[in-house]
């Protein structure tokens, strides 16, 4: 996968979470992932089409999403429930939007579908392109989360 795709998703994630959830995630070193196992307990997945095609997932550990969703909603949430899955869907939507805006600046016009959310220990993330995907890990005090991106331009570059 093209390394040009990393920064838009990294920057988009930081932008959304600092602005809407008032947390300051620390990004780790991106790496390649070949299996479908999610790195978190709840994941939002969104399909991408246009001059680059594929999918992006945002996968949160329980600790991280409870903090992030509580901050966004302005109330303490103590367990993964419907409020959490709804919040993960909207965060995925916003990160995709912010990343796609940055991709547009490097000449790639990408549109997105409506996200879906999967929750549960050891759930799978099935990318449209099959994989491998690039994982961009992040950390906040309350836990880990990661962006899991698998996209390719039409030429397959």
């Amino acid at each position: 996968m093209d390394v040009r795709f990393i920064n838009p998703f990294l920057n988009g994630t930081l932008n959304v979470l600092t602005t809407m959830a008032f947390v300051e995630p620390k990004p780790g070193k991106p790496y390649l992932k070949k299996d479908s196992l999610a790195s978190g307990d709840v994941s939002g997945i969104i399909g991408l089409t246009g001059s680059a095609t594929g999918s992006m997932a945002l996968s949160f550990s329980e600790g991280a999403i409870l903090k992030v969703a509580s901050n966004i909603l302005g109330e303490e949430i103590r367990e993964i429930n419907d409020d959490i899955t709804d919040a993960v869907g909207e965060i995925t939507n916003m990160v995709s939007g912010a990343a796609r805006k940055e991709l547009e600046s490097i000449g790639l016009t990408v549109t997105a579908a409506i996200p879906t959310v999967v929750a549960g220990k050891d759930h799978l993330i099935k990318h449209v392109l099959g994989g491998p995907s690039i994982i961009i890990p992040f950390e906040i005090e309350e836990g880990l989360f990661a962006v899991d991106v698998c996209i390719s331009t039409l030429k397959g570059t």
Partner: protein
Amino acid sequence: MDIDKNMGIVVVDDFATMRKVIKNLLKQAGYKNITEAEDGVEALKVLKSEKVDFIISDWNMPNMNGLEFLKAVRADSKLSGLPFLMVTAEGLKENVVLAIKAGVSGYIVKPFTAAVLSEKIEQIAEKL
């Protein structure tokens, strides 16, 4: 100019999270009459049954998306004059142009701060 904090506002978004975020911010800014709808279809029903003075709508929604909803509002002689603020993750230039051509009153790209939302509403309301 003082903004009427009693004006009826409908917040349209398929995600309850974003409806709640916007509703909380509006309440903090002093707005009192806020209604919610999950998509354009539901929002049109609200517009026909309740007094609404200001629309805040997402773009990406099932059933009827924000752009289709905007066009439906502008095509209805009883609703066409309503201020319509699009609050969306769709920041692509071609989409902003589409919304402007369809008659959007204002456009905010998510993520956004409370200050941005408040300022944009006041800018639009002052022109009424």
